[in-house]
Structure formats: C-alpha cells, structure tokens
C-alpha cells in the first residue's frame, strides 16, 4: 500500500511543480516573526500586474527597472504574495519576495518594508552561490536598510553604475561574481512592484 501511495505521489509531482509559480515564504509563521519581531499576526494578499493595470503596468515597471521582464517568473500574470504585518490591529509593514535570475540559479529576494516602503531587512530565501555566506552576511544585507525605491531610481542595474546610496553598497564577493548585480536587480524590482501594488506613489 505504501509503495502504491509513493508511486501515485510520483505521478502527481508534475501537478505540484506546475503550481509553483509565485514567490511565497517557505515558513511564513516563523519567517514573519523573525523579520518583524514585534508582529502579532499577518494577512496575505495576492497581486499581479495583469490585475493592476495590465500591459501599461508591465511597461511602467520595466521602464522604472531599466530592463525587460523575461522567463516564467517575470510575466504579466505572475501572482505575487504580499504579507501585511500587524502588531495587534496596527499595520507595521510588509514582506514581499521576488524571483530573480542569479549566477548559478534562481534567487528569491525578500524585503521586509515599513509602511512607507523603506527597507527594514533583506532576506535571501534561495541563493545558489559560491559566495552565499558573504551575500547573506549582515554586513552586506544591512547596507540595504533604510533604502527606498527612489534611491534605486538613479542606479543602472545592468551596468552597476549610478549615484547615491545604492552606488555606495559594497560588493561582498569578487567583482567577477554577478550575483551582486542580480541582487540589486531583484531588490529594485521588488521595490518597484510594491510601489505598483501598495504604495502607488
């Protein structure tokens, strides 16, 4: 009987895989508490560019990002999960993650944001890199704290050139490691999407 169940599970695997299009927290209860220690609860909402203006919204996001959307996780109908974080009944912030191409695989870049859209914490839920420990170190991720979408506006995520606070962020890995630029793209995309879905500035 167990063998039969396992075999059935094997055939069901494609269905399980095909459902994995969004970017959700793996363990939301614990992740929310870790990213927002003062939180007492959270709700989730689902947004997509399709529902938030369609092709116009996508074009605006691409323009703000300075790059085109490509691949399964960068389409107009991808559903994004936004976690609204509460302390009792007061909204204290948001958590939102995006998928981003990396040097050795997909990155999942989550941001904990305050209610004004400022970054409180950067969290890699998935990262394939020889320098993963350096990228995940607080000394690197803390450099993003306090940054907003506006800070990224003058930074070119393709060339890595720009001015202001973002340009001052130090690459923890050797210059040849592209994951630094990929991370910046992921963060910028995340902030632009949150502005489209939530802050609407």
């Amino acid at each position, binding site marked *: 009987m167990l063998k039969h169940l396992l*075999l*059935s599970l094997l*055939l069901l*695997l494609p269905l399980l*895989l095909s459902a994995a299009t969004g970017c959700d927290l793996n*363990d939301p209860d614990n992740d929310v508490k870790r990213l927002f220690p003062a939180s007492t609860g959270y709700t989730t909402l689902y947004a997509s560019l399709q529902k938030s203006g369609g092709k116009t919204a996508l074009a605006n996001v691409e323009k703000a990002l300075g790059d085109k959307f490509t691949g399964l996780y960068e389409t107009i109908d991808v559903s994004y999960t936004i976690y609204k974080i509460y302390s009792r009944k007061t909204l204290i912030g948001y958590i939102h993650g995006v*998928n981003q191409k990396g040097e*050795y*695989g997909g990155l999942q870049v989550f941001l904990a944001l305050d209610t004004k859209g400022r970054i409180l914490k950067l969290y890699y839920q998935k*990262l394939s890199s020889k320098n993963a420990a350096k990228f995940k170190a607080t000394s690197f991720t803390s450099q993003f704290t306090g940054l907003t979408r506006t800070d990224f506006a003058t930074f070119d995520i393709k060339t890595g050139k720009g001015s202001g606070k973002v340009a001052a962020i130090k690459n923890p890995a050797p210059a040849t490691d592209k994951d630094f630029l990929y991370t910046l793209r992921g963060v910028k995309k995340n902030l632009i999407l949150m502005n489209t879905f939530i802050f609407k500035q």
Partner: protein
Amino acid sequence: MPTITGIAYKNLRRKRVRSILTVFGIALSTWVLVSLFGFNEGYQSSLNKDIDNLGFQVLLTAKGCPYEAATLMLQGGKGLRYMPENTLDSLRANPEVEELTPMLMQTVFDVNKGEDGGVVGYLGIDPVTYPKMKTYLTFRQGGWFQDANALEAVLGYEAGELEQREVGDKILIPEKNVEVMVVGILNRSGTQDDGTIFMPFKTMQNIFGVQDQLTSIGIKLKKDTDIAAYEEKLYELEDVQVVSMAQVKNTISSLVSTARVMVMSIAIIAILIAMVGVMNTILMSVLERYQEIGIMKSLGAATAHIFRLIWLETAILCFIGGIIGSGLSIALSKATDALIRYVLPYSPTGSLIRIDAPLVLRSIGIIVLIGLVSGIYPAWRAARIKPIEAIRSSEGEL
C-alpha cells in the same frame, strides 16, 4: 398521400412545447451518456499514455529504496541505497529485455535554500539509452550531453524556470561546490521529468564518489513479455526491489473507480428519467388523440399502422434528442473535462474525454433503442384502441 413518417412528424409538431421538452430531456441523458463513454475511453487512454511516457515497464531499485523521487520527497534524500553497476550485465543476459537504462539519483543539502536549508536532487542518466526510452522529451533549448563524462546538465521545464537557467548558464552543486554547464532545457512534458535536473550518471558517480553504483535501472521489455513472470524472475537477483508500472496503473485506477461508479449511477438515473419522460409524452399524446386514432382505424388503418405511427414518433423524439445531446457533449467536452479534473483525486495529462464518431453513433443508437423500448407500451395501447368506443368518447382511458 402522406406517409406514416410524415404523419408522425406532424403529430409531434402539433404539441411543440411538449415535444421540445421531451427532446431536451433525452438530449441531457445523451450528453451524460456520451460524456461517460468518452470519459471511460479518454481516461484509460490518457493514463496508459502517461505510463508509457515513463519509458519502461519495470523499475529495478536497490532493496529498501521505494523509489527515488518518493524517497527524496518523504525522507529528505537520506534513504538512497545502491546496487552495483554490473547488475546491468546480469539483466542484459535476459532474453525478455529490449533496453536498459541505468539511473543514479543523488541529493545534496543546500544550506542556502530557505532559512533552514533544503534538499536538491539530481538524476544521473545514460545519455544514450535514456533519450531512446523517453522519446516524448523534446528540447526548448539545446540538447543532450556531449559525452558520458561531461560536466553538463539538462534541466526539465520547471527546473529550468525555477532556477531561471538557459543554455550556457551554470548551476552549482551545493556541498560539492562543482559548477555544471547547462546544455539543454526541455519542453514541458507534464511528467515528473519537468522538475528534474539531469546529468550523465558517470559524471555523477565521480562527483559524488559512488563509482560503479546505481540507484535504479529502467527496464523496457520486449512486446508480449509476461511482465508478472519477469518480475518474479527479477527477484532472483540479490537485494533488489521491483516496481512495475502496472502497479501504478492499478493504484490510479482504484483511486478513480469510486468516481466512475458515481458517474455511472448518475447516467443510469438520467436514462431512467428520460425513459419515463418519453413514455409519459407518448402516452399523453395517444390519450389526446384517442378519438383521432379511432377515426383512423375506422377509415382502414390497421393495428400495425397505428403501432408503427406511435413507435415512429418515439423514435423521432429520441433520434433528435440523441443528436442534440451528442452535439452538447462535444461542445461541452472541455468544460466536462475541467469538472472531472476538479473532482478526481488524480487525472492523467491529455484529454480525459475522448469522443469520436463511433462513440456518438453508439450512444445515439442506445438512446433510440431505449426510446423504442419505452414506446412499446404506448404504441401497443394505441394500437388496441377500438374505433367505435373511441369515436363515441372524446378522450380515452389508458
């Protein structure tokens, strides 16, 4: 001079609303019947196709290893066991074997997957035999490995998208810190291969330090081989476990058997309702035309003529209802497919409803036959009407 068919058709048109409602009831029954037959054929065919897509009929694994993918999911990749690679030689000697494909499943723990890390799995395959068995696998980009020892990977559709890889990109095997070049991305196949990262099994043996070891062997048997007998023969090998794809089919079939019984019951009820409806409509019609039938008989219509007339009316109703119902079932087959997928615990890929011309003709035939059976009683009662009694009274009692 009007024909019996013409008179029957005219009679039905005289009570248009009642005839339309009866036809509608028959059409609904036909829709259920055609969809049910279509489901029986489509489901079995799609399931067989899914099983065939596995490429081999028998999977030989090391004893204790239920199945690599299931092991991965349920035991976190810690339950892998091995069989020596020379098991292939023993199997090649079997005359029942058409083709063999060795496989090596390996897992690593990726500390950077989530907060607490996670397991990543890789399937080592033989670039010569595996593609031959999985002929349905086609490439979106690139192709299979260049040689058996290449540091290369082919990614299933979902794996490629999840890792956002393209041909020429690299993947990193955690723990081993080995870079592997992506040489191919597969098209979506709707099978477990979509989520798989493939590498040459020889390469994986070197990377993971398991030289001359395999986790499983896929066995494609020659046609007309007695699979059950061959499975018994395989158990003569030491420390192996045999997984037959026939077992998978039986498991899935038993999962859906309850749903099929329910659908069958609904179909039978629908047919019974239609039968009663047809009988009622025709009886009502005979009742209303009691005097008219009497006059027809007094003018020379034989008992057989009246019986044929009433029976024909039934046949026309059922025939039209059958055609409309068949059309409905074809037009709504996608919606029915979606509904069944929603209800069933497991649905194979491909169409669950397969409706073709023979099935439609068979269903219409069954509906007309059922209608004719239902029409026997009203036709018999109409044929037995006595002219004098009928002319004397305006309505009859049946």
